[in-house]
């Protein structure tokens, strides 16, 4: 749906040129929710603005829905932009217009008649659950309601793509969740391709199918969200994922006196990482039933990466040497990641 080929952006100024975006390739599939995550100043705003050409790239090509935007004149671009909706961190609603008139705005620009506009605005008000707020002004709305208006406005011209520029960064966690639910809902219902830029890992975790990590104008890592989150490669990605998935060992285990090999009477400490369907398997009771071992849980964390359950469990396995070894083999044979941390004396 969206293809960026070798897109770069440099801001020229007397004080020195700023390379906001190094030559970047990006491919976003139709109907997916694609996250671009980075710290402020990483170039993510520039990147997303290159998609609808609010920022003209210094070099490279931009394709949206098969059309090359980088070849177009301003006039042609204005037409194409109608099929690319955009929502913003600070909502950017027109303060002098009511909710209804804000949603009608893009349609007015296209020259639709009043009755045509009414036909489109009404269902949008229902979609974002603001039917009873149609005559309110933005200043009378909460942040979440304002963003709902922003979403309805962006959807008014039946876009194929929705760009979200830090759309939830100004909202509290609960409102963020409701906005993300709404985005996911319209993604499914309308088959809309959503590009979402954010610095909030929780946002990517909740709704993105694929993700790109950007730093200093360079995409340092990209791939399926679950993969990038569970097996981060780049240090920046690791730093980001740390806040959501704690890959470090808990303090209580760090303090333990551990040895690498089994000694008489020691207990096996093992970390199990579950992903997807394996999260439903009764691993612990399976071990206890099959082998004469005692299993106690030291640490546990279960999370959800979009629709994929993801869990970490650190367990202590006590018993005879042979039984522990057999239990370990059993774990290795399962569809989960098993890491031996050590043997506690």
């Amino acid at each position, binding site marked *: 749906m969206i293809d960026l080929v070798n897109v770069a952006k440099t801001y020229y100024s007397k004080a020195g040129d700023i390379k906001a975006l190094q030559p970047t390739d990006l491919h976003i599939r139709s109907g997916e929710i694609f996250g671009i995550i980075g710290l402020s100043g990483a170039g993510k705003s520039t990147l997303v603005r290159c998609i*609808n050409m*609010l920022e003209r790239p210094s070099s490279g090509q931009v394709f949206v829905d098969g059309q090359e935007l980088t070849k177009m004149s301003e006039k042609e*671009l*204005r*037409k*194409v*932009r*109608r099929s*690319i*909706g*955009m929502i*913003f961190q*600070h909502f*950017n*609603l*027109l*303060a*002098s*217009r009511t909710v209804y008139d804000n949603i009608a*705005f*893009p349609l*007015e*620009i*296209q020259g639709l008649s009043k009755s045509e506009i009414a036909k489109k605005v009404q269902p949008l008000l229902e979609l974002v659950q603001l039917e009873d707020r149609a005559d309110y*002004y*933005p*200043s*009378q709305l909460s942040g979440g309601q304002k963003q709902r208006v922003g979403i309805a*406005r962006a959807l008014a*011209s039946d876009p194929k793509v929705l*760009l979200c520029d830090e759309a939830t960064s100004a909202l509290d966690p609960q409102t963020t969740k409701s906005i993300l639910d709404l985005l996911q809902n319209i993604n499914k219902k309308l088959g809309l391709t959503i590009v979402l830029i954010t610095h909030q890992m929780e946002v990517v975790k909740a709704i993105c199918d694929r993700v790109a990590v950007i730093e200093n104008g360079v995409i340092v890592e990209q791939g399926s969200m679950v993969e990038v989150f569970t097996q981060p490669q780049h240090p920046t990605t690791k730093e980001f994922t740390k806040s959501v998935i704690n890959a470090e060992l808990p303090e209580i285990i760090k303090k333990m006196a551990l040895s690498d090999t089994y000694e008489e009477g020691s207990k096996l400490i093992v970390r199990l990482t579950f992903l997807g369907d394996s999260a439903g398997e009764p691993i612990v009771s399976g071990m206890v039933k099959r082998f004469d071992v005692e299993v106690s849980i030291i640490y546990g964390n279960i999370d959800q990466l979009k629709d994929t359950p993801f869990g970490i469990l650190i367990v202590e396995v006590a018993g005879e040497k042979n039984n522990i070894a057999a239990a370990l083999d059993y774990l290795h044979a399962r569809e989960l990641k098993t890491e031996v941390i050590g043997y506690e004396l």
Partner: protein
Amino acid sequence: MSSEMIDLLLKSFWETCYMVGASTLLATLIGLPLGVILTVTRRDHILPNQPLNTVLGAVVNATRSTPFIILMVAIIPLTRFIVGSSIGTTAAIVPLTISAAPFIARIIESSLLEISPGVIEAAEAMGASPMQIITKVLIPEARHSIVLGVTLAIISLIGYSAMAGTLGGGGLGDLAIRYGYQRFQMDVMVATVVVLIFMVQAMQSLGDWLSKKLNKNKL
């Protein structure tokens, strides 16, 4: 005060209203597009055009820095060309308009600059043309602030119109000078000033009320 004087006061009041009203209307008609151009041709705005911005800015500044009384005398040939005479109430409208237009242009410019760049960007992202951004975003969003600015211009025009009176323009200022000052009729002087105070108060209240009504930022 004799009834003759009251008639004269009333006549002068209407002359002032006529001068101020007509010059406000004309100055706004000139100042609004001028203010819009001064705004949108800025470097970071929707139609950047540095040379045009610089030239226009210089013209506006030059007009604004010329004292009104000098401007009025200096443009007498132009006034005569437009109105056919350089004396009279209608003739006074020309210098009043020319002095108020750049003032209004600057006021409109500063009102338009208050609009957040994000709102303009949102309109661009929806495919709005520069003209649509001007007529559907910039001016409607700034209207409450523009109303306050025009109120300010009306009040200074009331002051200037008194000066225009000295060139045979008529109006309250003329009355105050000729009867109150030159003929030592203190009552006329006081009455004129009271009427002027009343006018300014009324205009300011009207402007405040209208601006508040149009402002949807604080509800």
